[in-house]
């Protein structure tokens, strides 16, 4: 069981991932904006963060990842991104950031099961 923080401004994407992750026994927290995510992160450190690159603004997700990484360098982050955007999203990071083992990029649409498997694989590696 892991503590997962889900961040996405689409309520349905948060909801579906939450349902499947909870069913698999994970403890899930949900944030619908970068601001909410910050609040939850200050309250409690999760085992993994899953977030959408394209939140309220094009850069909100990227900024949030940088911020989280600066504060918690070993916290794994899975970035979800629309197809054709994974590359764009990756390019928003400097090469040394892109290669960080704790940051992974996942194509959207990623089925909730795929997200769950990714999270479980990350946590198993640790």
């Amino acid at each position, binding site marked *: 069981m892991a503590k997962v923080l889900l961040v996405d*401004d*689409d309520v349905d*994407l948060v909801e*579906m991932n939450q*349902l499947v992750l909870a069913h698999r026994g994970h403890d899930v927290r949900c944030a*619908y904006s970068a*601001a909410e995510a910050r609040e939850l992160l200050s309250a409690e450190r999760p085992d993994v963060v899953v977030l959408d690159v394209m939140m309220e603004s094009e850069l909100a997700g990227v900024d949030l990842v940088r911020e989280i990484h600066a504060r918690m360098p070993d916290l794994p982050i899975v970035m979800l991104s*629309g197809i054709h955007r994974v590359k764009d999203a990756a390019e928003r990071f400097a090469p040394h950031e892109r290669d960080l083992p704790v940051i992974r990029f996942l194509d959207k*649409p990623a089925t*909730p099961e795929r997200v769950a498997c990714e999270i479980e694989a990350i946590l198993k590696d640790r």
Partner: protein
Amino acid sequence: MIVETLRILSVDDEPGMRLGVARALGGFTVHLPDVGAEVGFVVDTAASGEEALTMIEASPPDILLLDHKLPGMSGLDVLERLANGDRDILTVMITAYASLETAVSATKRGAFDFLAKPFTPDELKVTIRKATRHLMAQRQARRLAEERRRVRFQFISVLAHELKAPLGAIEGYLHILKDRSAGDDPAVYDRMIERCLVRAEGMRKMIIDLLDLTRIESGEKKREFVEIDVREIAQASIETVRPEADARRITIGLHADAPVRMTGDRGEIEIICNNLLSNAVKYNRDGGRVDVTLCARDGMVVLTVADTGIGMTKEEAARLFNDFVRIRNARTKGILGSGLGLSIVRKLAGLYGGDATVTSEPDKGSVFTVTLKQEGPSRADVDGSCRTGAVAAAAG
């Protein structure tokens, strides 16, 4: 007014000619009010075709004054070499023998104009003025085309993203439904089906909004101007949103003492009323109020829709009427919309010689005001003056 300096390269083997050109054009300016530009010149000189090519290679001029008869390679040879590049240079051929043959050859190689030797400074200025006008108009057209391409690209990218979001939600839920990967509680799956239907409906609404916007901007839609009563249309819009309002205990009041008549296309005024009413309910708090006020003032119909909803900041309000702008924050989470409704409202109001504006305060509510000319759109407005929009660009 753009103040621009164009670079001229004068290529002539006679030093007197080079000096004469530099003198005639130093301090000469061309005023182009239609393009909004004031153009001055700096003149460089070259004594041979070879020297000219080296200079062009290093730093291409805007206008090339090219003598045909040069020692070594001829003016036509220079043109030939330049034709292979994609440089943005306007060439004026200068020739003592203004033969038809030279003219044809030079034109084939891309020369813009001719000047026969000998010429007076005034003749040179007339030619340069003509070349400048052409060059500046060409550049302006290119800039506009570039801007249209950019707007079109941006519109389509955002549209694709906005259509992908509900599709992603529906697909995700369908995968869970297919694999039963969220446990055994049937109520959970029923809720997913419900959400799929909501998102599919949202997608349908967005496509309808998009079609409305396309019709408005393209000027293709046949518009029928008749005498209409805006109060009656507003009343019908209120009835449309009534079920949702009732479910959330939102009261809607219509304040208009008498029919408010104007000339307009019924469908367009309905779109305005429906969008404003649907927003006023959607972004309201449970148990809130919506007040619709209608009056005619100085030849304008003034429609205001006030809600007691979540409101927005000044910065948010400033962006609100643009295409695909949806205010995304904790308060709007879970509220669906195409982000096109208000953009459509403003464009329509513009067609009726009016405008759409908003005043708002976070957590207090918003007041939307739409003004429309009672006499309906002016002739110029009807003739598709709003064709410059993004959809028209996307369709073009």
